[in-house]
């Protein structure tokens, strides 16, 4: 009996140890190599605008009071909850306890106040400073209560506080964050091989749920062909924003990869100088819109990937409405509108096109469509960003241009004075004030919808399409974002299959 029991025990332990060994062999990978087109210039999102900075450090290394999740919703982060006064002028944040920065210093209401005051300071170089201008004062009531007093209501403020530009920083790291960033996130900075890659490793003192990855490498490969080659050869595991749509079908056919087409907050539009003739006439703008087949542009520039838009909102923005039917493709109607505006034989103008593939291709298609209603468009290439920013954006010395606007909820640019559209519409300006004054989410959303409708009819810019987010990664990788409501490569929930 005893020997019998012993043999059972032996079999059982052998089986168990085999099981352990077996599972050890099948242990999932805990590292990730992620490809990006553009290397960030510095790693401090509070000091420079390029989206590539946030795409490395936002959520992974730096965190904010609140965050924007993968569906574009505002979620608590370093603030556990908050209270907004009924007049919309006082925000009281209840901050999380026991949070430390990666250099060991504590996070509390004083550091939060320091971060926000720094954004608002006179000599601040925060690229998004203007989004937070409604904040009049910041007060730390005690270690975990922060109070913001606003000079006027700003319904979007909470959303902006979730942005890369408003991440919480540790005061003593302020001057070194660009090269040696310190945040409160689940990953900490390890190494930056300039021109090549940034490595983040797990922050073992993280206050929240530990990430499943132990190491994330962001590799920078500018050339789309080289990106595709690196994916196929195994040099990188994932590309969240693949820049060559024409190569996508090659990956869709390949079982080793998963191809995910989502949306981004980037609207590609053909902005017009509304102060210049003939674009100061709404009928001309409408005619040009109706002469343009948006889908043809998407087909030519993005291999058919992307969503046609009828106003300055993308499907990833809250309150998006499909307004492409407001001024649909109708060349006959377009000709008629042109004749009404006094241009029965068309006119000639120049488009300043940034030297980016999507813009160059789109401009050629538009040239063909415009010629069908008798309008001659000359194409002038403009080096982006430097020359374009100077000519179009700063000097507004242009007729029409084409560009992608990447920031979410950025419809307010049409109310800005000055802005490169030279657009001025009191109705629209009032709509934006209404959005700011909204005290409920419903009011805010319907305010945005009203604003979208005004633009869809008034077309200060030709609304073309929302850029797709083309994600390609190896099979077995989970938790990557499908859509990009905020430009981000948040890998905090990413893991490999077992």
């Amino acid at each position: 009996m005893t020997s019998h029991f012993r043999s059972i025990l032996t079999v059982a332990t052998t089986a168990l140890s085999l099981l352990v060994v077996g599972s050890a062999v099948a242990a999932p990978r805990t590292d990730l190599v992620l490809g990006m087109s553009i290397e960030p210039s510095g790693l401090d999102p509070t000091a420079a605008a390029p989206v590539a900075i946030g795409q490395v450090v936002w959520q992974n290394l730096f965190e904010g009071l609140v965050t924007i999740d993968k569906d574009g919703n505002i979620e608590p982060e370093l603030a556990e909850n908050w209270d907004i006064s009924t007049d919309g002028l006082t925000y009281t944040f209840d901050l999380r306890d026991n949070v430390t920065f990666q250099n060991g210093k504590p996070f509390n209401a004083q550091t939060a106040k320091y971060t926000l005051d720094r954004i608002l300071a006179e000599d601040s170089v925060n690229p998004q400073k203007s989004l937070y201008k409604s904040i009049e004062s910041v007060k730390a009531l005690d270690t975990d209560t922060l109070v913001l007093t606003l000079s006027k209501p700003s319904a979007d403020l909470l959303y902006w506080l979730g942005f890369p530009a408003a991440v919480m920083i540790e005061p003593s790291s302020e001057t070194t964050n660009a090269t040696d960033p310190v945040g409160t996130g689940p990953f900490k900075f390890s190494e930056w091989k300039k021109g090549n890659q940034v490595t983040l490793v797990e922050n073992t003192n993280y206050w929240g749920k530990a990430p499943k990855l132990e190491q994330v490498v962001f590799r920078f490969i500018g050339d789309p062909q080289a990106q595709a080659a690196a994916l196929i050869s195994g040099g990188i595991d994932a590309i969240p924003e693949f820049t060559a749509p024409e190569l996508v079908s090659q990956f869709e056919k390949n079982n080793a990869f998963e191809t995910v087409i989502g949306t981004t907050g980037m609207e590609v539009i053909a902005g017009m100088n509304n102060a210049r003739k003939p674009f100061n006439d709404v009928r001309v703008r409408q005619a040009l819109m109706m002469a343009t087949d948006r889908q043809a542009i998407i087909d030519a520039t993005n291999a058919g990937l992307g969503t046609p838009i009828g106003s300055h909102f993308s499907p990833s923005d809250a309150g998006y409405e499909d307004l492409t039917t407001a001024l649909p493709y109708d060349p006959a109607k377009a000709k008629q509108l042109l004749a009404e505006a006094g241009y029965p034989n068309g006119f000639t103008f120049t488009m300043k096109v940034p030297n980016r593939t999507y813009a160059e291709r789109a401009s050629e298609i538009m040239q063909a469509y415009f010629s069908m209603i008798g309008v001659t468009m000359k194409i002038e290439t403009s080096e982006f960003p430097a020359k374009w920013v100077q000519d179009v954006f700063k000097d507004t010395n242009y007729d029409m241009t084409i560009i992608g606007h990447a920031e979410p909820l950025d419809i307010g640019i049409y109310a800005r004075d000055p802005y490169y559209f030279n657009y001025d519409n009191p109705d629209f300006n009032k709509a934006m004030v209404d959005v700011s004054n909204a005290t409920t989410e419903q009011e805010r959303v319907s305010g945005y919808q009203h604003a979208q409708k005004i633009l869809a009819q008034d077309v200060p810019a030709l609304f073309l399409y929302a850029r797709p987010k083309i994600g390609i990664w190896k099979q077995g990788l989970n938790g990557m974002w499908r859509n990009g409501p905020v430009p981000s490569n948040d890998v905090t929930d990413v893991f490999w299959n077992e």
Partner: protein
Amino acid sequence: MRYIAQSLVGLIITLLVVSFVIFLIMEAVPGDPAEIILGMSAAPDTLEALRNQLGLNQPFLVRYADWLIGLLRGDLGDSYTYSTSVAQLIGERLTVTLPLTCLAALLSVLISVPLGVLAAARPNGVVDMFASLFSQIGIAVPNFWIGLLLILGLALTFDWFPVGGFPGWEAGFWPALHALALPSVALAIPQAAVLTRVTRAAVIEITNEDFVRTARAKGATPSHALWRHIVPNAMIPIVTMLGMQISVLIAGAVLVENVFALPGMGTLAYQALAQRDLIVIQNVVLFFAAIVMSINFLVDALYTVLDPRLRVRR
């Protein structure tokens, strides 16, 4: 000795002029670095704050003088975008570009000199026809395109080489060399094509010289005449061409590094230009200028080694 000292003084004066011209061009190039760093939504006062912080609001001559004084002290300043010292950036990138260009130059000599000499030995022979075809294609096809073909063929189809990127020398000598293999071939081929032609022409020209006829008349075998009398004399145009081509090599490296995603000087210059990181561009361009001029200087000095007659003339 006096000749060398004179050349050095000339070199320094030229560099000074070049530095001024670079600074002047950078001044004229449209695009405000502050605007590029802060993006399109930055408010005017934020831009002004950053311009002050970067020292962009100082007058032209003050900024130029600052740069020169810094250069003399070995301080090249800090990159606007990377927030790191430019000297450190250039130093890091040189560990890629220097081996890449040296390897390419070496490869091109190893290909072109034997090929050119053999082609000249039997004009219109098989080797000559091959050399002519090679140099025509090599000159016509740009090096970044050769790079793409190499990636498609040797890296993707056969998986013999990495498709790009650089593991760094700390990953070991062989992995780093492996990563540089295809880019250096891509860079070497156009240069080898030009050098093959130059070698062939030089060898043929010298073969018809009197002293070669004399040597042959005195009983030198064809191969003795070729390797002892003709090739050494043909080295002058080859070395001259090689020296002149260094600038072509550097320009080619900019494109090839981009195709192979190599973190070298070329990628640095390319990025810095796009981002208007003026301080990086001006230092990189001056550095390239100094390299090209130093090589021309060395080539001049090499003449006297290769051809004793030139020593007497000076």
